[in-house]
């Protein structure tokens, strides 16, 4: 492992991406993601040995399409953006998914819709986990809750993108992005970057790959069926192999909190406060938002669930699906910007504890 540093979330994750061998960054500045772009821009000038290229695109539409070109040519490339910029990138996300391109995106979530606000939010959940652009596709979504986990997942994003030939999005938020935290930076990623030839990619099965990319221009029923069947086979493999989550104190719990990202930390402290006053509370913390960790709920029969989100309630749909609507699922909802305190979550836990 690497050295312990005290670093801002955005910068630590940018450094981890560089150490993962990401040499190309295309982006357009947007708060609260801009330090990632700034970090790559500085690295391009100050660390010539890294051979980094940073391009500030004229818009996110271009930045996302630049990634498509770069990864199709066998390079590790990424962008970092936030809600409005991520929306602009959705057309390219759909095309990259269709073409099996291993793009990596860091989405620093903030509250929406529209311009919203520039601090922490989780209102991109639907957009992240349901595709976001047009068509039947899925992105693999990784949601860290600390800067250190963010650094690990940033590197893993490249590994997973290349393993499945699929876009991967790391979903951070405005709190984690700006937080400075003690963190053990990961070392250099041992997995070599894909060969610098056409990478490419009809399918994650190497035997099926061809050395060309169709980004646009596919027509005809047969081809649409072939592509979709190929994609679904891939998504099934991801669902089988890549589910990640953590559970805390669930076995004896009467109430199970469900939370991800920076809000999960608020819930960890709330869980401790509740336990201190005798209310048995546990926590399920999804790390992959897609594929969703349904199996984390499999043995939690007879418990009440409190889904905590910085949105009007989006992940709660997945919690309900995971418990197959057999159990009561309640919502703790805040709009974001300012994180709620553990005591605010505790107040809802107390109320829920009274519900028969």
């Amino acid at each position, binding site marked *: 492992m690497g050295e*312990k540093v*005290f670093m801002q979330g955005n910068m630590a994750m940018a450094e981890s991406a560089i150490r993962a061998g990401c040499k190309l960054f295309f982006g357009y500045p947007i708060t609260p993601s801009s330090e990632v772009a700034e970090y790559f821009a500085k690295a391009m000038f100050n660390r010539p040995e890294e051979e980094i290229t940073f391009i500030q695109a004229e818009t996110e539409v271009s930045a996302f399409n630049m990634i498509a070109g770069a990864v199709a040519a066998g390079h590790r490339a990424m962008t970092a953006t936030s809600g409005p910029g991520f929306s602009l990138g959705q057309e390219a996300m759909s095309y990259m998914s269709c073409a099996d391109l291993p793009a990596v995106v860091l989405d620093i979530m903030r509250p929406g819709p529209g311009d919203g606000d520039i601090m922490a939010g989780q209102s991109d959940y639907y957009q992240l986990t349901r595709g976001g652009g047009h068509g039947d596709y899925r992105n693999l979504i990784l949601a860290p*809750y*600390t800067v250190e986990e963010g650094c690990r997942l940033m590197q893993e994003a490249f590994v997973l993108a290349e393993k499945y030939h699929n876009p991967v999005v790391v979903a951070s938020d405005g*709190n984690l992005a*700006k*937080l*400075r*935290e*003690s963190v053990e930076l990961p070392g250099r990623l041992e997995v070599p970057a894909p060969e610098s030839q056409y990478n490419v990619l009809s399918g994650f099965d190497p035997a099926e790959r061809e050395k060309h990319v169709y980004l646009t221009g596919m027509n005809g029923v047969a081809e649409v069926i072939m592509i979709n069947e190929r994609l679904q086979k891939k998504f099934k493999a991801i669902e089988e192999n890549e589910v990640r989550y953590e559970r805390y104190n669930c076995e004896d719990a009467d109430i199970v909190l469900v939370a991800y990202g*920076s809000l999960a*930390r*608020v819930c*960890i*402290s*709330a869980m401790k406060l509740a336990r201190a006053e005798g209310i048995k509370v546990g926590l399920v913390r999804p790390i992959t938002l897609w594929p969703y960790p349904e199996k984390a709920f499999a043995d939690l029969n007879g418990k009440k669930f409190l889904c905590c989100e910085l949105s009007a309630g989006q992940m709660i749909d997945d919690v309900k699906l995971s418990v197959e609507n057999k159990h009561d699922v309640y919502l703790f909802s805040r709009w974001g910007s300012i*994180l709620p*305190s*553990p*005591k605010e979550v505790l107040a809802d836990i107390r109320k829920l504890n009274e519900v028969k």
Partner: protein
Amino acid sequence: MKKELLFSGIGGQGIMNLGEILCAAAIKAGYNVTFSPVYGAEKRGGRTMCNIVMSTEIECQIVSEADVMLIMDEASLADYQHLAGEQGVLILSAQVESTPDSPCKNIKTVPFIEKAMELGNAKVANMIALGFVLKYLDFIPYTSVENLVKETFASKAKLIPLNLEALKTGYEYEA
């Protein structure tokens, strides 16, 4: 173990510097540390506030019941005193004139600026504050903070003795 700290003042008072030194010392002592700075939009004289959480496990990263709150100006008291914990300590610069209305009843008023001027330089008020805050954080070794102060001023070595003296003044001040 979890300690929540909130320090707030006006740009130029060295609040962030104080917070950063404490964070570095807590990391050296093996704790998880989070630091969330808030800056006012003003170029000079704006708000500088930092939320610090030091813990043995991963915890909530925002301050909602401060164990130690340091307030250097009037406006900061109005904005943050409700976040001082009942079991914590609220440390006020003697320049703050209004009476606190906070859940925290353990209030210590310290003439940071006056003490700094007695040492010959008003700018070391933040080091006096650092020393005073340190009294409430017994898991951070004093010598570790001393060494970090030396490192902080390594490029201006002639300022080191004065800053160390200020640190000691704060640490030994009884309020």
